[in-house]
């Protein structure tokens, strides 16, 4: 490589993880020139995301590369249809059979409720507000999918969601949810589908898929 100014180099806007960066090791001790691979600099990397320009019933992340250890899905937004709130479902690899189980603990105002779903065809991952919620109100949901590329165990998910759907402190003004889910299948997960229980995710809803680095 010819000598050149850093400012004159071509910029790389996304990292594959195997790029080399120059560092000075132990700068306050015995400084030494060293290299480091980019993947050790970040434990979580955006795989893809979608901000809806129009409403959609499902958002599916397909052809997920098997290069991470765990996956994290995050959704910020709300749903269409005239309900205060409704569920969001998660399904893997297009499996619509009764191979899913879920357990949730959710609270609204001062009431807490535990709810199981055994032998279901989709995992209840949380709640997002519907169009009966006041304008601007929204919800958030995250789901961690563990060791998604493994072919040894059934796949496990932990979820959290927050849905604000009515005036502060009104009855059922908000739902906070912690949940767990399983997919009774040892196959590696290659696609994750997010289903809007109320019918559609609203315009402006953002769904992101992250990968947690394996090493």
């Amino acid at each position, binding site marked *: 490589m010819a000598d050149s100014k850093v400012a004159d180099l071509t910029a790389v806007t996304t990292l594959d993880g195997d790029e080399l960066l120059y560092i000075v090791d132990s700068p306050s001790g015995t400084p030494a020139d060293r290299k480091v691979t980019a993947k050790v600099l970040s434990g979580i990397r955006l795989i893809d995301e979608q901000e809806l320009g129009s409403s959609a019933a*499902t958002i599916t992340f397909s052809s997920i590369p098997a290069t991470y250890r765990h996956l994290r899905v995050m959704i910020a937004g709300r749903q269409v249809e005239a309900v205060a709130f409704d569920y969001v479902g998660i399904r893997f690899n297009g499996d619509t059979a009764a191979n899913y189980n879920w357990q949730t603990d959710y609270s609204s105002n001062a009431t807490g409720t535990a709810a199981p779903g055994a032998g*279901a065809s989709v995992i209840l991952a949380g709640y997002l507000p519907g169009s009966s919620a006041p304008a601007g109100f929204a919800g958030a949901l995250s789901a961690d999918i563990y060791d998604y590329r493994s072919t040894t165990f059934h796949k496990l998910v932990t979820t959290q969601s927050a849905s604000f759907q009515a005036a502060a402190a009104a009855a059922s003004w908000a739902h906070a949810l912690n949940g767990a889910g399983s997919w009774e299948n040892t196959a590696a997960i290659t696609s994750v589908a997010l289903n809007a229980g109320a019918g559609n995710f609203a315009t402006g809803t953002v769904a992101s*898929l992250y990968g947690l680095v394996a090493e």
Partner: protein
Amino acid sequence: MSDVVIVNCSTGEVEVRPMTDAEIAQQEADRAEMSALIAAQTDPIADLLTAVDEATSIRGIKDALRAHLPRAFGRQ
């Protein structure tokens, strides 16, 4: 007509298309299943108190306790 959005994480391509009849049927089946599961989830303590309140005899109270206490204590 609702759309589905499919993001190909390997190529970055995004497909937006209307739901197929099979997908619409699956969505309706999902909603029916989830509604049934959620409807089955009521507050076990509230159920216990309601059953006791509605009992009109000692025997009725015993039956209410026998029916609802296990779930109220998380045994079912």
